[in-house]
Each structure stands twice: as structure tokens, then as C-alpha cells.
């Protein structure tokens, strides 16, 4: 079953990566990566550990400065801006409002000692919400949407299971209605049964909200389930890209064929 596209076609890309490279001294993180991402599109970045996927995600999201190339993002006012030209305040604002970032380890994306409600509410306060009652009801509403019992709203995520933490991290990211969400192995550390629930939840939310997503994963089933397009990375470079079913069902490169054929059918 292929992923459906809810968002209408827009002729201008939301994000453009142009010749992005990142090296750490002699070690290459990623090399000459170029692609376009449109509103409502889900792009999977696959490849094994050390292939440069996570480095690429950090460069794309402005957390690492590229050694070469640039990232251009179309802001909500329709103006396309080079990320490097943004001031620190602008960049922070982008991160708080228009973007989300889901870490593999939810403790990096959550504040573990404050309540779940405050974790979700904090993003709203950062964009100017002040009314406590409204913030709380928005938080509770989002707990419902990620299938966390609303009775747990006042509990801190350190009392939550791994799957619940990950769902809370997603709620915290989506509450400000971002247009673009970066995800780094969001199902990575979870049990298989918990993974399925999270994936299904993500699939529904992405479709319903028309989110653009760049998702890094080594799990081809995750790419198949969530993404429209896939790029395959090896040694820091993109070696193959295309529609997800094309890349997975008709892989062209030797390395992609190896990846696809290494998965045991369930």
C-alpha cells in the first residue's frame, strides 16, 4: 500500500539542499547532497550506520554548519532564505514554530523532570500562548491524539515507558503545527509491538496534517510505510534516489540491492 499525498501541489519546494557536504577534518560526514523537498512530502534517508544519514539531518536542520553547499528554506511568508543567512533568533524561532525534530532518544527531545502537559505547553508558550486554561486543554488534546491517557498529563515523562515517551515527544513537536519535521530513527530503540503502534500513529498524523518529513532510518519497512521518496546513502554520498516503491522494488545500485535483499521477509 503506497502512502497517499494529502497536500496540494505547490510549485515551489519547501526545502532545497544544494551540494551539501560536511567533513570533520579528514573524516567525511556527508558529501555533495542535493535534493528538493515539497510541502506534504515524506522523504526517507536510508543506509547503514556511519553512512552519513544523521550528519545530513543535522546539517539540514541547521544544527551543524555545512563545510560546503547550502540549505534554502521557504519561510511561512513565502520568502526563500538561506539558512546560513538567518540570525540566531530567527533560527530559534523557526525551530520552535515551523519545524519539529524528533530524536531517537526521547530524553533528548523532552524535559524529563517536568510534567507531560508542560512539555507540550512549553512549545505553545514559546510562540506566545499565555492563557493557562487554553494551553492545558491543547496539551490534553494532543495527549489524546498520541494515545496517552489524559490522566497522565501531570506526570513527568521519566515515569513513562519508552513508547509513551516517544509519543509524547511527537506531541510536543506537532503542537505548534510545524510544516517540516525532522526525524532521526524515531522507532529505533523500541520493541517491535510498540514500533508498529508508533508508526501507524505517525502515518496518520503526517497524512492528516500534510506534514513534510525528512526521516532517517535504517529500517526499510519504516521507509516503505511512511515515505513517498527515498534516498540511499553510502559513505556520505547519495547513491540512489527515487519513489520509495521504485527504490525498494527495483533497486538499481549494488549497495541498495544488498540492503533490500538483506531483510528477512516477515
Amino acid at each position: 500500500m503506497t502512502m497517499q499525498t494529502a497536500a496540494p501541489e505547490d510549485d515551489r519546494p519547501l526545502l532545497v539542499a544544494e551540494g551539501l557536504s560536511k567533513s570533520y577534518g579528514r573524516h567525511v560526514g556527508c558529501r555533495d547532497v542535493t535534493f528538493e523537498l515539497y510541502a506534504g512530502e515524506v522523504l526517507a534517508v536510508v543506509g547503514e550506520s556511519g553512512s552519513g544519514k544523521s550528519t545530513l539531518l543535522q546539517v539540514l536542520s541547521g544544527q551543524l554548519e555545512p563545510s560546503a553547499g547550502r540549505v534554502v528554506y521557504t519561510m511561512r511568508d513565502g520568502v526563500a532564505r538561506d539558512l546560513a543567512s538567518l540570525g540566531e533568533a530567527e533560527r530559534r524561532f523557526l525551530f520552535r514554530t515551523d519545524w519539529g525534530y524528533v530524536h531517537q532518544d526521547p530524553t533528548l527531545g523532552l524535559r524529563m523532570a517536568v510534567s507531560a502537559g508542560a512539555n507540550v505547553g512549553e512549545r505553545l508558550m514559546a510562540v506566545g500562548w499565555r492563557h493557562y486554561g487554553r494551553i492545558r486543554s491543547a496539551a490534553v488534546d494532543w495527549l489524546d491524539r498520541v494515545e496517552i491517557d489524559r490522566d497522565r498529563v501531570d506526570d513527568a515523562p521519566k515515569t513513562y515507558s519508552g513508547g509513551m515517551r516517544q509519543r509524547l515527544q511527537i506531541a510536543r513537536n506537532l503542537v505548534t503545527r510545524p510544516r517540516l519535521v525532522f526525524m532521526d530513527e524515531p522507532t529505533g530503540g523500541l520493541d517491535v509491538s510498540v514500533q508498529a503502534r508508533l508508526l501507524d500513529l505517525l502515518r496518520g498524523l503526517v497524512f492528516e496534517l500534510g506534514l513534510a518529513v525528512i526521516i532517517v532510518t535504517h529500517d526499510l519497512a519504516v521507509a516503505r510505510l511512511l515515505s513517498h521518496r527515498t534516498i540511499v546513502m553510502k559513505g556520505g554520498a547519495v547513491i540512489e534516489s527515487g519513489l520509495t516503491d521504485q527504490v525498494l522494488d527495483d533497486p538499481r545500485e549494488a549497495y541498495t540491492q544488498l540492503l533490500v535483499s538483506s531483510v528477512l521477509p516477515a
Partner: protein
Amino acid sequence: MAPVLELVQANKSFTMHLQGGVRLPVVAGVAFSVRPGECVVLAGPSGTGKSSILKMIFGSYRCDDGRILLRHADTTTDIASAEPRRILALRRDTIGYVSQFLRAVPRVTALDVVAEPLLAHQVARDDARARAGAMLQRLNIPERLWRIPPATFSGGEQQRVNIARGFLPDMPILLLDEPTASLDAENRAVVVELIAAKKKQGVAIVAIAHDDDVRAAIADRIVDVSKFAVAA
């Protein structure tokens, strides 16, 4: 009427890098066209590349060379060279595909599996579910199964869910990969009726059907795929 779909000298082969780079030819020189309201059935023994041709038209297999022209709403797209984004838009609005097997998603109910393509057409959820239910009813899927993910369904039930999903939205082109393979006579007859209704609406259909009765009932033309086979 002008064809909506036209394949021009389309070629496909696989290069198996893990098997020493052996090249596996699939089809060569594929050429046929389909007009609105017409059902073309691809015939030929197993392994001659019938399903591969459907996948090339849907864009899930790449086309090595040649063209796969789709003419719709005053634009012509060559699927063989189109951008992924264009193919995604065509899959949403223009080309429906009923694969041989349903790829079930955990936790998504049969009703939502069927309703999903309508949601992408901006149909409201309640309306989409009501229409999905009517289609499942028509295909004899009992209502008690609608709220259950189809992963545990029998082969025939899964196939009917897949058919319901493919037939519900109004798509000008439909690709059908053995839609009646695991169905009993009663349900085969329903599918034949559904195909006849689509043809009446002007839908262009490319189908694979091994069952002689089904083929005779739906085919306006038969294209023998073995003539596109490549001598290995």
C-alpha cells in the same frame, strides 16, 4: 477517441549486482495503447513480464528506455522519465492500481484501508467511510470485519479489500493484477460487474486475468505479452 495510455518501445531489464552483475531481460519493445472505456488484457504464460508491465505503468519499476505516455486533462506525461512528484500526483488523481496482494498496515481497519484514497481527494472522513462500507458490502465483506485490520483476513477477503480500495475512487486509468485470482464464482461475478461499470464511465483498464471466463467477459482486446519477451 485518442488513447489515454500509450506504451512506445518500452524496455525493462534487471541488473543483479549480487549475482555477478548478470543482466536479466524482462521485456523489450512493449507497444500498445488503451482508449477510454476500453479494457486491454495482457496475456501470456507466467514469467513473461505481465506484472512488470503494470508496475512500469504505475512507476514502481523503472523503464530503461522507450516511453509510457499518459494523456489526461490536456497534458501528456511520459511516466518513463517523469519526476517522482509528478508520478505521485498521477497516483493520487489518475492511475489506480490493484496489486495482487494487499500490503496491510498494522492497526489500520479494513474500512480505512478502503476509504484512504478518497481522503486524499478531499472527501470528508464520514462520507469516505460510508462509501467504503458500501463498496465492501458489494464485495461481500461482512460488516463485522470492517473495523478489523485486514492482516488476519483470508486471501480472498484481503483481495476484495484491495479491490474495494482500487475501485472506489474515480480514476481515469485502472491497472488490475489478477483481481479475481483468489475469489469464488460469486465474487468473481461482482468484480466483472465492477469492471463493466468502470468501462461504461470511460475508464481505461489494463488487466491481467488468467481465468478464461473472466477474460472473455472483460477484454475488449488481448495483448500477447510473449511477443515482448527477450531471448535470454
